[in-house]
């Protein structure tokens, strides 16, 4: 077995790839509920002069925010963890009704070496919840495929108004390590 290609990758660059893609698509509002897997991207957003990072108390706020942003002429992207997807369900009904561009980037828990059983039920149903709610799901499982997946997701979300979620797999992010 080869060593994991990204084993020495203590500061992964894929969040910078995501940031660059979002900038290129003129994304302006970035609502988020913090997650360790999104921490670098959130830092980049909060340091940006063109994007506004908006901390939420619960993820469904972000869906409504993006509807308002679009009515006012701006694109946005919602950053959250898989456990937050369940919090969004009713608010996702705004997307087909109001027909605004919806892109969300979801860091996955409850899969690939998960330690915490409490993450598993929602992590296991995240993709199904999106698909039942009319949101197409793309997945990135390695750093190498992040740029192409993000490009495709942003293009179909913003150009074709196809509601899209990108699941950033726990294999990509690294399973959270719990130590005593």
């Amino acid at each position, binding site marked *: 077995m080869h060593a994991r290609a990204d084993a020495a990758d203590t500061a992964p660059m894929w969040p910078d790839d995501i940031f660059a893609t979002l900038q290129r698509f003129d994304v*302006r509002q970035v609502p988020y509920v913090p997650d360790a897997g999104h921490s670098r991207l959130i830092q980049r957003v909060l340091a940006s002069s063109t994007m506004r990072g*908006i901390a939420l108390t619960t993820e469904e*706020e972000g869906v409504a925010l993006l*509807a308002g*942003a679009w009515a006012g002429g701006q694109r946005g992207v919602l950053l959250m963890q898989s456990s937050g997807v369940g919090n969004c369900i009713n608010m996702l009904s*705004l997307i087909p009704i109001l*027909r605004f561009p919806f892109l969300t980037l979801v860091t996955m828990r409850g899969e690939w070496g998960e330690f915490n059983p409490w993450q598993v039920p929602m992590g296991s149903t995240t993709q199904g919840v999106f698909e039942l709610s009319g949101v197409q799901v793309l997945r990135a499982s390695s750093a190498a495929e992040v740029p192409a997946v993000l490009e495709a997701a942003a293009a179909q979300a913003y150009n074709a108004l196809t509601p899209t979620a990108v699941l950033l797999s726990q294999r990509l992010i690294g399973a959270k390590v719990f130590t005593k």
Partner: protein
Amino acid sequence: MSKANLLDRRQVVSTLLADRKDVVAIGGLGASTNDMCAAGDHARNFYLWGGMGGAAMIGLGLALAQPELPVLVITGDGEMLMGMGSLATIGLQKPANLSIVVLDNEAYGETGGQTSHTSAAADLVGVARACGITASQAISTMAEVEAFARRVHDVAAGPRFANVKIDNASLERILPTRDGTYIVNRIRGDLGFQPI
């Protein structure tokens, strides 16, 4: 809790929108969105028929995208209670051009008039202020409504929040369009944005 000085919801909303100029107005799910329509349909009216709890956040997204425009959210106590966390989000962002008015009849009027939390315990003005929306007030007179309506146009001094105690009279329903895509694209068109 005093039940004196309860205002008429339609009179409150028509006063808020009487001299609206550039205002973009968002009506929360329930009677509030009907009140907005009763005051006169307008290209900048964002009528909600669903997404309960989302009105204030739609207002925030619009206010951040259009910082020069006054954005006014008009919603009910039940809808605001469901999205109470959004007051903390707005208190953090402090959009100077966003105003929120809650029409508080202390009841879920659309579902049979069950009492809401504001009838006995919850103080939404206190919540908004504690979340960092310092310009938060209770309104009990039409003179205060008129003064608030003027302040909505000051896009440098918000965010502001008002809780207006209204009577729970059941009024004739004035129903706005239910076509969400039409509603959003009409606002976008009025703001000068082209279809995709």
